[in-house]
């Protein structure tokens, strides 16, 4: 039983960042801007916030520090994504090229600054953020150990973001405008919606969430930041596509990928999987192969926003 609890707790660590980043990507793509820079933005967010944790941890520990780091991650991701927004909205640049540039820039920048400031690339931190057991809720039989023990507040923030994202997208005026800019910006413009503004908002929300995703990916799974989030931003893109740009389905697919990733990362701790004696590299391939298979099945009837990736030009119909 305890290994099942362990598996579920681990799955949460891997799924929540995917969920948050994929939801971020959803806001950008729903507004009509492809954001393959998610990986780079995650690195930036993680870099800035872990750097702050590293600097402040002698003065403040625990949830207070984590909250500060969360704010830093949100802000740094948002600022970094401004570059993408400027290139894709104002400069009408090729969004894939701009995203690629950001993806190349982030690890180089993080490594450069870390090595200039402290000599080595790794930024270490002490993990004082783990919650052994949530008061009251952790005592519930079965559910307690699954969701409320050995956890982080970021997990619950992730769930809140999911609900908020769904509500924003489908129940608010802003959400409707965002979706219309991704489907048919000309029509949106004709009824007085400022397409540029909405697209900026979409990209900035995605930047903030991706930055946060970088932090909550690193904190539970590591004790140092090494200028990489190991392809998680790209996995989040796959989650977004498999989730068909819809919060509920993104939630399900994030958990599917989280589970795959958990199997590949923790198979040695699971007796049943270890008995199979398959090479460790095969396990490491599982999440990526699963992504391919799942995409091959689900991409035929893609429900991507119609205008995604196309710079808005008032003159075209």
């Amino acid at each position, binding site marked *: 039983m305890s290994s099942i609890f362990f598996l579920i707790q681990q799955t949460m660590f891997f799924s929540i960042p995917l969920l948050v980043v994929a939801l971020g990507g959803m806001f950008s793509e729903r507004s009509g801007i492809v954001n393959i820079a998610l990986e780079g933005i995650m690195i930036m967010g993680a870099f800035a916030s872990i750097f702050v944790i590293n600097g402040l941890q002698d003065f403040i520990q625990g949830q207070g520090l984590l909250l500060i780091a969360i704010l830093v991650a949100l802000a740094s991701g948002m600022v970094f994504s401004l570059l993408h927004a400027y290139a894709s909205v104002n400069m009408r640049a090729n969004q894939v090229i701009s995203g*690629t540039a950001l993806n*190349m820039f982030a690890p*180089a920048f993080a490594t450069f600054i870390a*090595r200039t400031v402290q000599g080595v690339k790794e930024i270490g931190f002490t993990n004082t953020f783990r919650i052994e057991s949530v008061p009251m809720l952790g005592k519930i039989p079965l559910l307690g150990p699954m969701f409320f023990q050995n956890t982080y507040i970021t997990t619950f923030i992730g769930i809140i973001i999911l609900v908020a994202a769904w509500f924003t997208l489908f129940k608010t005026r802003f959400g409707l405008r965002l979706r219309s800019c991704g489907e048919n910006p000309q029509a949106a413009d004709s009824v007085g919606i400022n397409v540029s503004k909405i697209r900026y908002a979409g990209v900035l929300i995605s930047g903030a969430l991706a930055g946060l995703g970088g932090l909550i990916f690193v904190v539970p799974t590591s004790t140092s930041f090494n200028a990489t989030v190991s392809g998680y931003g790209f996995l989040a893109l796959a989650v977004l596509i498999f989730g068909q740009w819809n919060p509920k389905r993104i939630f399900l697919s994030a958990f599917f990928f989280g589970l795959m990733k958990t199997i590949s990362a923790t198979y040695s701790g699971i007796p049943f999987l270890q008995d199979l004696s398959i090479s460790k*590299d095969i396990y490491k391939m599982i999440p990526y192969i699963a992504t391919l298979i799942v995409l091959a099945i689900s991409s035929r009837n893609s429900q991507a926003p119609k205008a995604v990736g196309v710079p808005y030009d008032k003159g075209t119909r």
Partner: protein
Amino acid sequence: MNNKLRRMLDSYNLSSFIASFSAIIIGLLFGLIVLIFTNPGQAFAGFRTILSGGFSGGSRGFGNIFYIATPLIMTGLSVGFAFKTGLFNIGASGQLIVGAYVSVVIGVYCTGLGQFQWVLAILGGMAAGALWASITGLLKAYLNVHEVITSIMMNYIGMHLVNSLVVQTVFDSLRNQSSNVAKTAYIPTMGLDKLFRGSSLNAGFFIAVFFVLVIYIILKKTVFGYELIACGHNPDASKYAGINAKRNIVLSMTIAGGLAGIAGSLIFLANTGKHIEVLDVLAAEGFTGIPVALLGLSNPLGILLSAIFIGYITLGGFYMQLYDFVPEIIDIIIASIIYFSAFALIVKKLLAFFKLRMNSRGKQRSEEKPTTVKEE
């Protein structure tokens, strides 16, 4: 004079060249600003080292520019060729490592071939890379899976697969890397090591230049190349014209993969002590192919030049460590160059505006071409 200038500005190539060139200048200036912020005292000395690049190392440095550029030409061609068909091959890294693995296996085991061993090893690398990329092409053409996602996944799968296979077949467990290939599997140096004494240059550079010419001829002089470019510009129109778009997507990815596979062969058969290391790190040369292709505007000759340029400033970054600078500044500069080159459209618009003004001054409004320019 006026007329001539206008015709020059009309040319798509020239305005693209100006766009790339200004991106390079702005990217370098941005690098300088970063240097000034991080280490004001040494910033200008360091920046001068970047600019003088490979030249700071004499004939050795000069040869090493081309040595570093060799695999970049191949991965640049790989990305650029796929771009021409409207595909973004971000998977050159995986194709490269798979090709490298097959080359190394042939280099270690097929010793009976004598002088032809390295040729077979390169062909094997090419075939492996092509096969690896064809999966991406097939998924794109027949199942509508976006090639960016597929090729990223194939990068990771390729890396882990090669790690696992190296350990099982050609493992040097002491150094945690692939074992040495046979002497006959090394690419001949053809006297280049003597010409540029101390450098690691070998005939691999000629092989890369040979493929630049091959790709140039395919794209510019063959029906097949014409069809590929047509598919890239407008898939619907080319379908209407009877071009088999699906087949072209698969073929284009396959060829791109073959080119990246050769890059892997050229790196690991170069007799410079490079081995496939069993680490969870993607091959960087594959990703550098992207800026090479973008800067070279996906034109084979442009790719040759931009690969040499990237080799040049990479070497500059290497020499910069003398000034206590971290070499990653070069990656920052390259990334900002790519970012600014995405603004190409605006630069071209400015040029077009300039042209229009000259047009109205000369009162010749005869052949005003639409000034919108296609993205890469």
